[in-house]
């Protein structure tokens, strides 16, 4: 059993993570990498600053991995999420799952990234080539909800 998660402030070494989970009990390895895209919502991106509620992010990421291991009978999983200033093409998250069978490996990998997107207390401030920057959320640029709509 080898389940490990980490919130890191350095480059993610994907090759090392793949070596870490590799096991001859497994016939399938699925790797997911999230990387900084050059365009988001039509704007030219220069980089992303990732921040987090660090202590909680570590706990949530560990919980997600445990839930994944239980749900898909996964014994070999490593997840790293990077924080700090990332440049175009940099890897913000790596999820490496190895499993006896491919269906479970894919499903487990997808489970982790979807849970991360929903639950991990991590935020990103996207910098643009034109010098502007914005907090972005999964649904695009965060909309401030006007107070008067909140019925309070």
């Amino acid at each position, binding site marked *: 059993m080898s389940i490990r998660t980490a919130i890191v402030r350095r480059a993610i070494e994907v090759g090392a993570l793949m070596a870490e989970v590799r096991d001859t009990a497994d016939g399938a390895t699925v790797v997911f990498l999230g990387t900084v895209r050059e365009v988001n919502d039509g704007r030219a991106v220069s980089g992303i600053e990732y921040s987090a509620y660090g202590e909680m992010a570590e706990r949530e990421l560990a919980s997600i991995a445990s839930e994944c291991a239980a749900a898909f009978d996964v014994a070999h999983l490593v997840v790293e*999420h990077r924080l700090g200033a990332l440049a175009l093409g940099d890897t913000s998250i790596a999820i490496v799952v190895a499993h006896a069978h491919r269906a479970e490996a894919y499903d487990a990998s997808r489970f982790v990234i979807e849970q991360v997107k929903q639950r991990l207390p991590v935020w990103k401030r996207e910098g643009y080539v034109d010098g502007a920057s914005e907090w972005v959320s999964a649904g695009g640029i965060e909309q401030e909800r006007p107070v008067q709509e909140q019925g309070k």
Partner: protein
Amino acid sequence: MTVTALLFASYAEAFGSDRVEITLAGRSTVRDVVDQLRAMPGGATLPATPLVAVNLTYACADQRVESGDEVAIIPPVAGG
């Protein structure tokens, strides 16, 4: 009693701080903490029912808070 509200990302920017001490009556809930924050300068950026974590675990608005709790107001997350 007093709890510590933690603010992140856009919320921290709006409040000009990532940490606010909140004084409450006994038998207070997460909702009471949020209501106090919303009445403060910068508080208009907070929705009425933001995502909240108490002592590192997601909590609902009705959850009771205790003196010394760490009440984190979680902006829409954007991990991955």
